[in-house]
């Protein structure tokens, strides 16, 4: 089992680096997960992570790429809801990586 | 457009046959395989329901023989090669899994 230390806590991760217990998520955990991917979270990242968390709260599943783009366009407008913007922020795999940083389960329909 | 509907569950205590008969089109056909051939048990409600619907009914001969079901003259007993031909003959196959 992988784990990661954030503050004084050991956070369990699965083999792909996703949280084992989704309730472990916090802003600090997100920053630590991002650091492990060599990403420094900016305001642009955070708004997508928050969006993913609201997607999960609403639909109880992690979006694949297309639905992520569609949902982002719906909530933040087409300037941000496009693959170029999301790929740039999340190293070309927005559905998978952003879900990881947002503390969501790995998307099952991630193609 | 025509669809071959394929049933394989016993019609007793299962509503696939009932549903299928509600939706089946006049150009469609019905193939009974496995326990679905029990629908051809003479005198039963599924038997009557099938007989009263003027649709093409096929049954896999070996499944009927194994279950001591006699295929009535308004239905046709077929083997596997005929099943394949039937599938090709229709635009699509809808298996009621």
């Amino acid at each position: 089992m992988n784990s990661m230390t954030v503050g004084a806590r050991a956070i369990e991760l699965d083999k792909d680096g996703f949280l084992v217990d989704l309730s472990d998520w916090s802003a600090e955990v997100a920053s630590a997960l991002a650091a492990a991917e060599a990403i420094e979270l900016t305001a642009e990242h955070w708004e997508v992570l928050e969006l993913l968390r609201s997607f999960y709260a609403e639909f109880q599943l992690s979006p694949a790429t297309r639905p992520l783009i569609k949902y982002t366009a719906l909530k933040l407008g087409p300037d941000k809801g496009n693959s170029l913007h999301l790929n740039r922020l999340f190293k070309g795999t927005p559905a998978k990586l952003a879900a990881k940083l947002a503390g969501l389960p790995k998307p099952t329909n991630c193609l | 457009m025509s669809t071959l509907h394929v049933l394989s569950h016993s019609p007793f205590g299962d509503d696939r046959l009932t549903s299928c008969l509600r939706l089946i089109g006049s150009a469609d056909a019905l193939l009974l395989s496995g326990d679905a051939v029990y629908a051809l048990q003479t005198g039963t409600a599924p038997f009557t329901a099938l007989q009263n619907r003027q649709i093409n009914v096929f049954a896999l001969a070996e499944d009927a023989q194994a279950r001591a079901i006699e295929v009535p003259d308004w239905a046709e007993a077929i083997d596997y090669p005929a099943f394949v031909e039937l599938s090709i003959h229709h635009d699509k196959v809808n298996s009621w899994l």
Partner: protein
Amino acid sequence: MAKSLLIISRQSPWSGPGAREALDIVLAGGAFDLPIGLLFLDDGVLQLAAGQNAKALQQKDLSANLQALPMFGVEELFYCADSASTRGIGNLSLDEAQPLAAEQITALIDRYDQVITL
């Protein structure tokens, strides 16, 4: 042009994996941008009942998942009106789903290239 696919979902949400499997096919098809439709038939309409509580059985919330269908590009959503009225389902949790009578379902099946009934 990709072949169009109709999924007929006819299992109750709590009886086993059938309802979830049907939804997974639809979501995967939607993610691939396939022309895909979903019809709720027989006990499948029970998936649409409003006010279900998955937490009571510690299960995943299928009705919440169903709300994501339009987001996954699946806009063709239908249910059998007879199945719903037989089961006393009046209040549906999925606004986008359209009621169909039996003969409309026959025509619907005709319209798609392939059909999978689960």
